[in-house]
């Protein structure tokens, strides 16, 4: 019996060794010179040719059935028909997992034939990837769809204060909006200070997710901007002397409102999802989200009451862009570029913008789009819960650089949560 076991063990080891044939990396171009060296001198038609027949694996957050349906249905079939590209969606729970994966491949020395072709990404995750030298550089400007993007807008040229430099291509845009139940309050408070006053006039009906939750974090930044007065002095690298007095005022405001919050501020919702739950159950009357169409989508899904509406502060709310980027070692870069271009195209953006499809917010600039597209976008039925695009655009604030964000999050925990 022992002999049999030993034989089995040897067989298994041989099997394992036999499997190290290495992964066949899909080459993306004529065999003489790698794509990575030629692409800047190629026309987009040539890139499309090089991409034909490739399979592009796109790693993205998989928690939205609407987005999944859009990507795996409309986008995938159009890419297949038009360009012969097979799009394979790899759904993840948190894109940081994919960032770690690419970094691990880099550490293992896998500089070609990487398993990730395209990533839906922004902010901290993009910065991590780029600072590690793990992104494919300088390609987004080659895309024909790129002509409709306003790269003068700092919300696009800077990803959370970090320069993009055409290393990623815009896909969607987000602007922080506040949500409220119009059945409970007819006029929402139009500034941060007014909101805090309202909270104390209606104790227990307002709260916000605890940082480092994405949504809670950006809410705290709004309070921070309000405490700063003019936030534009804060754009740029982190500055302790400017930070300290504003932070002090911010904690005063937040600690002052804490007893009026839901559950007396004893506990904060851990995630934005938890806050939506409270809002949809009517325990709180105000919520918040990074997407202007989130409330409308939730109404359509039956999660939010039909009377939910959105508003932005008169002084504006923080807006940012989300992108798709290509890892430095992606096996199918030509295909990834073609996919990014299609995603950004007015046609695909329009499809996604339809409320019954995704209800997407587009990063395309209306100033740069041809008139026919402007009309089409404007003609889209806009649910009552979604603010008009021009109103949103008029009230945009941009994000600060990452060190401001992390510091604000840490100090919130120390000065508000733990007090």
């Amino acid at each position, binding site marked *: 019996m022992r002999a049999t076991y030993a034989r089995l063990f040897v067989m*298994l080891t041989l099997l394992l060794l036999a499997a190290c044939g290495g992964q066949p990396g899909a080459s993306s171009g004529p065999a003489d010179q790698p794509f990575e060296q030629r692409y800047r001198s190629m026309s987009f038609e040539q890139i499309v040719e090089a991409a034909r027949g490739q399979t592009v694996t796109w790693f993205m957050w998989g928690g939205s059935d609407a987005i999944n349906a859009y990507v795996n249905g409309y986008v995938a079939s159009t890419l297949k028909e038009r360009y012969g590209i097979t799009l394979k969606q790899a*759904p993840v729970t948190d894109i940081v997992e994919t960032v770690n994966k690419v970094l691990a491949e880099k550490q293992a020395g896998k500089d070609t034939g990487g398993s990730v072709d395209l990533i839906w990404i922004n902010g901290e995750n993009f910065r991590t990837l780029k600072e590690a030298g793990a992104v494919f550089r300088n390609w987004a400007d080659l895309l024909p769809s790129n002509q409709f993007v306003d790269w003068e807008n700092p919300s696009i040229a800077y990803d959370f204060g970090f320069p993009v430099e055409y290393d990623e291509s815009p896909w969607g845009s987000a602007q922080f909006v506040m949500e409220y139940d119009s059945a409970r309050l007819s006029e929402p408070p139009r500034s941060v200070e007014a909101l805090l006053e309202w909270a104390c006039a209606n104790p227990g009906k307002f709260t916000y997710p605890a940082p480092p939750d994405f949504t809670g974090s950006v809410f705290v930044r709004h309070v921070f901007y309000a405490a700063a007065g003019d936030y534009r002095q804060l754009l740029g690298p982190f500055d302790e002397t400017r930070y300290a007095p504003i932070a002090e005022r911010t904690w005063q405001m937040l600690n002052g409102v804490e007893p009026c919050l839901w559950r007396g501020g004893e506990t904060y919702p851990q995630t934005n999802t938890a806050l939506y739950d409270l809002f949809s159950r009517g325990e709180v009357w105000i919520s918040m989200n990074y997407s202007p169409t989130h409330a409308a989508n939730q109404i359509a899904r039956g999660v939010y009451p039909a009377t939910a509406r959105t508003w932005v502060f008169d002084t504006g709310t923080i807006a940012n862009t989300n992108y798709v980027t290509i890892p430095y070692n992606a096996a199918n870069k030509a295909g990834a570029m073609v996919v990014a271009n299609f995603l950004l195209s007015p046609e695909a953006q329009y499809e996604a913008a339809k409320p019954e499809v995704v209800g997407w917010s587009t990063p395309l600039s209306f100033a740069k789009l041809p008139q026919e597209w402007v009309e089409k976008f404007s003609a889209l039925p806009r649910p009552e819960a979604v603010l008009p695009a021009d109103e949103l655009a008029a009230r945009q604030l941009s994000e600060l650089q990452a060190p401001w964000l992390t510091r604000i999050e840490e100090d919130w925990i120390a000065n508000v949560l733990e007090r």
Partner: protein
Amino acid sequence: MRSPGSPAGPSPPRPPLLRWFVLAAMVIGMLLPIVPLVIWSFAFRWSFPDLLPERWSLRAWRYLAAPESQVLPALRDSLLLAGAVTLLATLIGVPAGRALGMYRFRGRAVIEMLILAPLIVPAFAVSLGIQIVFIRYGLADTFLGVTLVHLVPATPYMALVMAGVFANFDRQYEDLARTLGARPLQVWRWVTLPAVLPGLVVGALFVFLISWSQYALTLIIGGGRLVTLPMLLFAFARSGDNAVTAALSLVFIAPAVVLLALIARFLGAAPAAGGIRGL
């Protein structure tokens, strides 16, 4: 063994009422959490404090049925993966369990510790290191690679269960068969296998469930290229879409329940020669 000379007795007395009550409580306790899942999967809008959703809808199930949700391929891949892992873990774990349960040999304690180590050290802790090695050997993002890494937490369970089974197995049955002329393979087929089968099935179920429910390992080694049900499930679980999450959960639970029902006759069956008395 029955006492010598006694005739075959009457069947054992029926279990007392208390036993039935406890059994019912256990079954209800296991099935009860599934009820909200079922309701949620058909809910359009359900908020506290309603006992039932105020509006119903098939949205979640329609999404699952559509090819865009990738549910069917994920189900298939999860099944194939768990099946492969079960097969390999059995091939490795049964001889290992036999060696541990039936023999005394030098270095036995060390080997026992090595085999059971994954039960103490979570596989996740070493998975990052494994990933680097797998990338180098081209095993990352492959079905084979994920199968191998699932074997890490799964095989010790099979080995442990089989060690217990074999410890209770009377070797003399095999000796007897050999003296009657049975060759080793025949001994295995006619004597050993039928005796250890209940324990083997239980062990295989453990292994299947371990592989079936793996998230972190599949994620790190399979890297999103191999999409299994847990990965779809986790992505939705944090999205706030309770209906789809509930529907996915039901799809996730279903095969395990089916399996359990199929092998129920092996659990609590009168132990054969080897039996699972150790459990």
